[in-house]
């Protein structure tokens, strides 16, 4: 905020677009308690898959709370949904996908991201491409590649294209046996399982043969104008506006095409000062509400281990969405379950979320002083009049004990104002 005020909008965005330049040592130190985050694929198999999944989930929550690279983490969240792989379905493989696909390319180039995802054992296992073999194709990956990852469902492909793309990816699998040694859990192309012959995708002949068939399809899709439009629009929805204008969608697609899918350039175009000034409110997802609650309260974070269960009850546990389309980026989807949004802050201030504790000033005996302090600490002085008035009434509703002060903080975070970006 200080940087935003002193250096202005552009400097702030540029700073956030260069995450490696942002010191994140506090977050990194916290993450050191999760050894599986940095293991090589074959090393992960020494752990129970539930431990692997749980550590990744906790790391996601910890990063949401502690990382200063917030725009980067928002982009990681976006691509995690875009290339969704339900963690429970893929055993030990999810952390490698998170690390080498999503986090490696979240602000990189879309084509690199797409290629990495296509060769990610987690994605291959999730969408059954390990069983996609010559003569007996399995369409699962091919369909979602076209529908969800690139062109979009109305992106101009046919059932025939799905079948042909499936053939192009026959033989794309991964080493999955202990006897594979250090290769276990890594990508493998099996020439013997690859369907030979020319395939036709979107009217183009795919004739290179071997692994190049799949690589050619990825290049074709990554550079397709419908991909720029479809994925670009999703990014606008995520960062700015759930119902973007056609003009903005076209402008962002133009940037996408001109920069050959440079994600930073696309984000920069979306987050212009004008666009942000004109953006409508957007409902936070439960994940955003809960990490923002901990940040706003400046809670002492000894552990985040109890937070995933809260997120689960709110329908937003990391890596748990059960279908390949990822958590909905849609305020309508999230608006009907308010109770966890009210209860989480109430539980944090009451000290009943294990691992999180607050050290707020609770010595105010004047309700006005309390409300003004909450306004400054949680809302940077922007608390709306209704919230302020109702909070005052609550503060006056009984003896202003330390507990009532804390509950007032929790109540403020349950307010509708806190639910919207």
């Amino acid at each position, binding site marked *: *905020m200080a*940087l935003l005020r002193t250096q202005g909008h552009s400097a*702030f965005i540029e700073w*956030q677009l260069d995450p490696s330049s942002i010191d994140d040592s*506090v977050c990194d130190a*916290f993450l050191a*308690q999760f050894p599986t985050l940095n293991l090589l694929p074959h090393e992960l198999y020494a752990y129970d898959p539930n431990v692997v999944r749980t550590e990744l989930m906790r790391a996601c929550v910890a990063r949401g709370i*502690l990382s*200063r690279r*917030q*725009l980067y983490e928002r982009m990681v969240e976006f691509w995690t949904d875009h290339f969704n792989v339900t963690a429970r379905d893929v055993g030990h493989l999810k952390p490698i996908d998170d690390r080498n696909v999503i986090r490696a390319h979240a602000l990189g180039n879309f084509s690199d991201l797409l290629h990495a995802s296509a060769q990610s054992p987690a994605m291959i296992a999730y969408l*059954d491409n390990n*069983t996609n*073999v010559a003569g*007996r*194709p*399995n369409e699962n990956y091919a*369909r979602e590649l076209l*529908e969800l990852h690139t062109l979009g469902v109305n992106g101009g492909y046919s*059932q025939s294209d*799905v079948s042909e793309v499936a053939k192009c990816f026959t033989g794309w699998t991964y080493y999955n046996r202990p006897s594979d040694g250090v290769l276990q859990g890594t990508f493998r192309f099996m020439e013997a399982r690859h369907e030979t012959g020319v395939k036709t995708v979107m009217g183009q002949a795919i004739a290179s043969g071997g692994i190049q068939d799949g690589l050619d399809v990825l290049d074709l899709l990554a550079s397709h104008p419908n991909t720029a439009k479809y994925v670009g629009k999703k990014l606008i929805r995520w960062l700015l506006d759930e119902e973007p204008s056609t003009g903005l969608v076209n402008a962002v697609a133009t940037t996408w095409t001109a920069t050959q899918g440079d994600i930073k350039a696309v984000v920069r175009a979306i987050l212009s000062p004008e666009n*942000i*000034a004109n*953006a*409508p*409110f*957007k409902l936070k997802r439960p994940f955003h509400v809960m990490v923002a609650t901990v*940040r706003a309260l*400046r809670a002492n974070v*000894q552990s985040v281990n109890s937070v995933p269960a809260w997120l689960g009850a709110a329908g*937003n546990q990391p890596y748990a969405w*059960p*279908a390949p*389309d990822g958590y*909905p980026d*849609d305020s*309508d989807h*999230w*608006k*009907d*379950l*308010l*109770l966890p949004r*009210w*209860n989480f802050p*109430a*539980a944090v201030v009451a000290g009943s979320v294990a691992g999180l504790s607050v050290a707020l000033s609770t010595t105010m005996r004047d309700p006005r002083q309390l409300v003004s302090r909450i306004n400054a600490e949680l809302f*940077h002085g*922007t608390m709306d009049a*209704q*919230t302020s008035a109702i909070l005052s009434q609550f503060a006056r509703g009984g003896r202003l004990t330390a*507990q009532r002060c*804390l*509950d007032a903080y929790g*109540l403020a975070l349950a*307010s*509708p104002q806190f*639910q*919207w*970006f």
Partner: protein
Amino acid sequence: MSLDPIQAYGCSEYRALSRRSFLKSSAAAALIVTSPSWLPRVAYADSGGSDRDIVVSIYLRGGADGLTLCAPHGDDDYYAHRPQLAIPPPDSSDPNRLTDLDGFFGLPPAMAPLLPVYQAGHLAFVHACGLTSTTRSHFDAQRFMEVGQVGAGASDGWLGRHLATVSPLDGASVLRGVTFDTAMALTMVGAPLSLPVNDPESFGILGTSSTRDDRAGRIGQMYDHDDVLNVVADNTMATIALLETIDFAGYTPAGGASYPPSQFGDALRATAALIRANVGVEAVHVNKNGWDTHASQGVVTGTMAGLMDDLALGLLALHADMEASGHLGRLIVVVLTEFGRVVAENGSLGTDHGHGGAMIVMGGGVVGGQVMRTWPGLATEQLFAQRDLAITLDYRDILAEIVDKRLGNPNVGSVFPNYTATYRGIVV
């Protein structure tokens, strides 16, 4: 490890990214939900309440394979297309054979517990039915089917529109519809007095107990000022009070019914508790995920067998519970899925996205004991696009007849816009 909060939060980048920090004027008005244009044209049905059914909508997400749920053993092409995945016919000696229903269709072992319900005339299958859109996208197909209109964007669901166009079963009800999940199913979106409930046993305000009522009241006041969330907040408060009066944990099913120990079983058990509590809930939606069986489908043991086992035991328990407690006559259950799967198995012992499929209808008013269909055949030239079971019956024919005859709502044209339903005689 412990963190110094000041060190951890040296900067407030996250909040700096907040929209509100940049906004000068309120744009929330753009999000205000307006009344749908069809609403004024509707004549509210008043059927006098108690003779109307309570509807339980179950959605099998992922595209359940209709040729396994209710298998056509009388069609030789079923066996020709599925050398590994077809289940042996009822007259075979294989212990994992089908259980015959009508001489042509049979139940897989995992569904066989439902045979007595079928024989009692309380359960019917509808086959070669579904959504006539040619899409093979889960997400489009689910959306079109739940909205009730091919090609529709996400707006209101068919069950939501039903509840919006019929007078309440109980005029004093504060909760007419429930989706047992963490979000409303699109099927029910648009329904008045309806909410998602993840866990009915713990649906209440937490935090410091001495200030709970005070805080709840203040939250209610705060949400009066949010044009988007105010209705949900009101419904939530009323639902908290309602659900507190029902002992879900101590609920005893009637007739010795035993719900399976699963999320699905829990949801149906809670459904039964709501029905028997007679609190004016008239629609329940339950999602059951996991039917996208591209690989290792497991029709006798494995993935799909496990799903069917849970489905069948859940329906069986709900039937027994409702029958023994005298509620079966006002229960109607519909089981839908977005599409069936390709007739021929793939190389992964699974099946890819197809077209026609099967649905299940259960309840006291169902013309049960039948597999309703106009069977199109499974020879390659009889298939849709040479690969899928053709659709000879639009799923909306079944739902519209139920909405009209069992749910007391003659406004089927509003529930299923731009569609003229043909009633097939699925219910009395």
